[in-house]
């Protein structure tokens, strides 16, 4: 090879490195992509394997003549086109949100900001919103006209806030006042036809499960099974609620259940949550829980007793977090299953949680998973 060979190798190597390192991945990219399918996976019409039961609160209405309906995408449940032929379209958006978002005032003020109006207080609520009874539910009908602001033209909003049992439903149309004005009466007439229903999508029922009828069991009437309760999404868990525990609405998407226990002046809350992955590892979780009841973090897990417990054939862990003098006590069962970690947690006044220990363990042992989801 000799020095000649060397002289050719070094520049060649340098060029190779330069070519290989030449591209940067730090740039903003733009691209055109096919329309996003609705979030739930398989395209419409394609058969899905029967896996999990999904309780879904839905709404039904009578579509006024001349309007058109499009299925929603992402957060939106549906889009109604009031003038199907016109461009730009006049869209009535139907969006369900978690019940936590049901406060009419907060929503009205959010909309007011969008059309250039200042916020209002509770005393002014009746001025911009009217309460009407629609099939036993108190619906707020909102009609507001904004002002021109920040290069935005004047816009008018017609909206309705319909509280369901699992979600709150928003109906909203916003455009120029003249255009909206023609639909004020039609919007109210349309809202009077809207009904909240509970349906389980037949193709998502577990194998061998009998079909459920639309408008059937309401939420929380069957506390032992989330198939009829407040699951905001898929929920493969079943359990039996111990006597004395009261089940309530789960308002967080990661929360599969909420229950409360009251004994005299003492209170405790039981939650079942689900998160993807191992959620920070055991030590991080233990320290987070310790922090919640005002305890110092521990350096290693040897300082925290962890008991093994079997939940529906899955090896789970039981932890009790407490300390002398602490006002609160925590009982936690961690169930690692598939791609998720399930947390069954009781938080509350020291004396009550200590007293409920056996009930809690028995409750946790009684949890079982949908076999269709395994």
């Amino acid at each position: 090879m000799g020095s000649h060979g060397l002289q050719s190798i070094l520049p060649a190597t340098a060029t190779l490195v330069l070519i290989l390192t030449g591209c940067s991945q730090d740039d903003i990219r733009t691209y055109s992509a096919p329309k996003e399918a609705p979030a739930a996976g398989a395209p419409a019409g394609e058969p899905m394997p029967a896996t999990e039961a999904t309780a879904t609160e839905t709404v039904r209405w009578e579509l006024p003549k001349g309007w058109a309906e499009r299925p929603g995408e992402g957060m939106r449940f549906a889009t109604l086109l009031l003038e199907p032929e016109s461009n730009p379209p006049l869209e009535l958006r139907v969006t369900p949100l978690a019940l936590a978002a049901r406060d009419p005032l907060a929503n009205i003020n959010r909309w007011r900001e969008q059309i250039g109006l200042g916020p209002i207080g509770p005393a002014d609520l009746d001025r911009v919103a009217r309460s009407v009874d629609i099939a036993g539910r108190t619906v707020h009908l909102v009609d507001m006209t904004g002002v021109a602001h920040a290069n935005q033209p004047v816009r008018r909003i017609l909206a309705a806030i319909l509280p369901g049992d699992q979600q709150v439903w928003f109906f909203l149309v916003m455009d120029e006042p003249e255009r909206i004005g023609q639909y004020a009466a039609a919007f109210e007439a349309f809202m009077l036809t809207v009904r909240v229903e509970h349906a389980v999508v037949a193709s998502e029922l577990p194998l061998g499960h009998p079909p459920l009828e639309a408008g059937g069991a309401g939420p929380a009437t069957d506390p032992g099974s989330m198939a009829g309760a407040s699951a905001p999404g898929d929920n493969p868990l079943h359990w039996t609620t111990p006597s004395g525990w009261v089940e309530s609405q789960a308002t967080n998407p990661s929360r599969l259940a909420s229950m409360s226990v009251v004994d005299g002046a003492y209170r405790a809350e039981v939650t079942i949550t689900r998160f993807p992955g191992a959620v920070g590892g055991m030590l991080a979780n233990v320290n987070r829980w310790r922090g919640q009841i005002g305890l110092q973090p521990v350096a290693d897990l040897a300082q925290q007793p962890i008991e093994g417990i079997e939940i529906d054939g899955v090896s789970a862990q039981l932890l009790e977090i407490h300390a002398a003098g602490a006002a609160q006590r925590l009982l936690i069962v961690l169930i690692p299953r598939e791609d998720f970690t399930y947390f069954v947690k009781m938080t509350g006044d020291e004396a009550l949680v200590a007293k409920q220990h056996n009930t809690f363990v028995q409750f946790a042992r009684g949890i079982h998973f949908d076999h269709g989801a395994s």
Partner: protein
Amino acid sequence: MSGSPIRALIKPLASLRLTVALLACSIFLIFAGTWAQIDMGIWTTLGTYFRAFFVWIPFRIFLPRHWDVPGGIPFPGGWVIGGLLMINLVTAHAVRFRYNRKRAGILLIHFGLILLLVGELVTGLKAHESRMSIDEGQTVDFAEDTRSVELVIIDPSDPARDWVVAIPESRLHQGKLIHDTRLPFDVQVEAYFHNAELFEGAQDVATSAATPVANSGFAVELGAHARPRPPSSGVDQDEIDLPAAYVSVLKDGRNLGTYLAALYFTLVPRFGLQDVQVGDKTYRMALRYVRHYKPYSISLLDFKHDRYLGTETPRNFSSHIRLVDPTHNENREVLIYMNNPLRYRGETFYQASFKQGDGGTVLQVVRNPGWLLPYVACTVGALGMMLQFGTHLLRFIRRTRTA
């Protein structure tokens, strides 16, 4: 060549002592990189220790963590050690080795080693891995890079296709204002957490004044907040980082709202994209895995998860797919199973995982322009060894006969 200035310059580079020192350094680097995985994920470690020029090795990685020993040492990273090893080998050939038939075996072995080093260089810089996650009956035309996220702003106004502007994770620094003509509005990054946990309720927010509060989007609807969490480490099995960002949308200098964009929202099918209202126009926003759209699509016809009879032990995973590529007139069915990947248009699709309830498949999509190099390197090295040991054996037999 003897006495030439180049030779004098490169002679130290060709030294055998340097070889030994570099091999010792690489052993130490691997040792440190292994310990580092207690705190860092495998890919972070790979990037920090091995695919880096220099690395700061903290002392505490070798010690129980609660000792909290400060300090560390700077150390050459994988690129430097590998690069020097290659230079060392090449220059050794240039200045020390003499070429004759007897040394052909050694030459081949060294050539194989050089190819192996070049192969790692090409893989480190050019290989790209992503995942295609497909439900049974679903057709997918993009792969996701599950090691990096991007903030996407989508303009859905075209009824046929979405227009997507994607801001890479590297641009999402706290306090940074992202102004770009391709974006429909400016994006102010209020906070970015590489790994975050979401929680609900307001009481925790008061304790953390540094965390911004969202006033629009999912966070408001759910009463959710995000707080930083340590990155998942190489010893935590099955754990993933869940990045989250608080971003404000600015138009003409006016703040139109602060949103919480979180990968968690993207992974939970119920959420997906959140709406961002700018004037009359609704955009969509999400923090999601970096997507690479393909000019072809893959439909999952059937996924099989075979188990050994009477047990839950997996025997085989296989994906029966249909590959459709109009630009190449491809429309065929393929069976992908373990050790039988599909190779198509420079990419290899391996059976990697499956979805809950066996309802879908996860394919690992690997594009590695250097994928052949390790095979060639090993073959060349093996040939070299056969030649080298064969020559020695023949010489030995000849000597024995003569004796």
